[in-house]
């Protein structure tokens, strides 16, 4: 039986200038493009990602988070990821993207 590519589920919660996105699935080349295009960043200065249900972040995902950080810069915004698994944390740290993560509790 063929596996379908996993959809990325994006749940957005906006409170004023803070946007929290709970992600479920993978961040691969397909879903990463989708993520960037689906977020409304108007007036957002804090973009948080709850990564509890994210199984993998591939390099396409790293690029997407970087792109979002760059998109928020003109409006003085930042991106932070929390609840990343240890394996995913390792991916961010060994590529120099550790600053996007909330410090390990």
């Amino acid at each position, binding site marked *: 039986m063929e596996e379908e590519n996993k959809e990325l589920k994006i749940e957005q919660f906006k409170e004023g200038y803070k946007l929290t996105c709970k992600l479920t699935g993978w961040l691969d080349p397909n879903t990463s493009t989708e993520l960037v295009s689906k977020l409304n960043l108007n007036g957002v200065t804090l973009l948080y990602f709850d990564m509890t249900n994210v199984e993998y972040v*591939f390099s396409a995902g790293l690029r997407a988070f970087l792109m979002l*950080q760059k998109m928020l810069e003109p409006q003085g915004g930042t991106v932070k990821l929390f609840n990343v698994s240890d394996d995913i944390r390792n991916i961010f740290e060994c590529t120099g993207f550790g600053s996007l993560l909330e410090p390990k509790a």
Partner: protein
Amino acid sequence: MISTEQSNNTLEGITFSADNKKLAEVLAFIKKDMARYHLSEKSQFNMVTAAEEIFSNIAMYAYSSNKKAIVTINTNLKDNVYAISFKDNGKKYNPLENNDPDITADIKDKNIGGLGIFLVKKLTDIQTYVYKNNQNILTIGIYTNN
């Protein structure tokens, strides 16, 4: 040099079309194969990630539109190394020759090129490349006694 020429499962390997739509199928195949051996969770995670980077690079860059774009994947466990090889008929290219991206750059200065292959090198213990019979063959390996 590691080789998957004599594979434990098939001699020919499994062929997928070189399309990112096939990613889930490719990674499921690799996960299922790795489950047969006692690799740590971290090793399995790292191999899946490295495999995704390699497969999606082939899907995006190896073929021009008028060629049947396929990737053949073989796996092997030998001498405490679990190896996966990726074979394609696309243009001759050794991704391991690329310069690594500057990972120390400040986030706002980051250049995003070469991240995929950089991850492959960091997450696996061995990487080899050969060009043989008009095919690129990229093989990654991880020690199983970690």
